[in-house]
């Protein structure tokens, strides 16, 4: 199974953030391009969810939900902005 769009992770991220992250704009720390998280590529790997930059394929974010914890890495995102 290939990738889907960034809006597919809205459910998981709604558990963490008080706003809709898929409508936020982020800058890729690898290639510097900007885009809405909803436009990024999401891979559901069963082990976890990987969000990749639509421009350079590099990893923007990794989300893992274990029975006791949620792990979120945003190491590939430099800055998130969203309208107030």
């Amino acid at each position: 199974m290939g990738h889907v769009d960034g809006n597919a992770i809205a459910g998981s991220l709604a558990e963490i953030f008080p706003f809709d992250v898929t409508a936020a704009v982020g800058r890729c720390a690898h290639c510097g391009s900007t885009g809405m998280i909803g436009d990024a590529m999401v891979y559901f790997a069963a082990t976890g969810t990987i969000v990749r930059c639509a421009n350079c394929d590099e990893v923007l974010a990794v989300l893992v939900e274990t029975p006791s914890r949620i792990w979120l890495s945003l190491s590939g995102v430099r800055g998130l902005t969203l309208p107030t």
Partner: protein
Amino acid sequence: MSDPPPAAARTAWRVGTVIEARPETSSARRIVLDIPDWPGNDAGQHLDVRLTAPDGYQAQRSYSIASAGLGSRVELAVDELPEGEVSPFLVEDLQLGDRLEVHGPLGGYFIWMPQSVTHDARPVQLIAGGSGIVPFLAMVRAHAAIADPTPFRLLYAVREQSDVFYLQELLQLALSGLKLDFVYSGTAPRDWPVPAGRITKEALAGLAIPASEKPRVFICGSTGFVELVAGWLIELGHAAADIRTERFGGT
């Protein structure tokens, strides 16, 4: 008009009861849930359905919502995937009166908001592949319900007429202003002006609002369909920033 509460306050796991279920096509089923604490949803949002077996095993999938607006009535249309785990249960085993756990409403990206909110008068082009029609049903219903002045055009690519979701309702909406086009990939209805076949770039150019009118475009379907159509639209001069996509995966 007051601001809606933030997403986290509106989004939660809730329990809905099946109050309506009927075949939509030979492989799909329309399911209506009554979810007492549902906060309402925007047109195009989705929800997650979670099934739990007696031994604690769980399976969870996302489904687009065919309804929009306030109220506790939430409508889904689920296509059964032959190798699926959740969709065969929803289409074949779920019964009236059963209770389902759902998480939502979800997503603020693939949604349509009325012109009174966005002040954006540009026309809207919706392009559905197969069961990708579901979020667009919410959009065309919401658009019709408030008589929004935004020009709407819906292109629906489907194998044959018996696979069309909500055919009668779409035809009704077409009588009251929705511009509706079908592309049949398998078998076209009798007397259909064009032979059946997979959508082409030329067909798309003829059936979609041209780039010169700067439409906002929403595409929903399988990954292959979405990538093909989005790629052609960009070749036809549409701006990537005006195109929003929702792909659905395998199981």
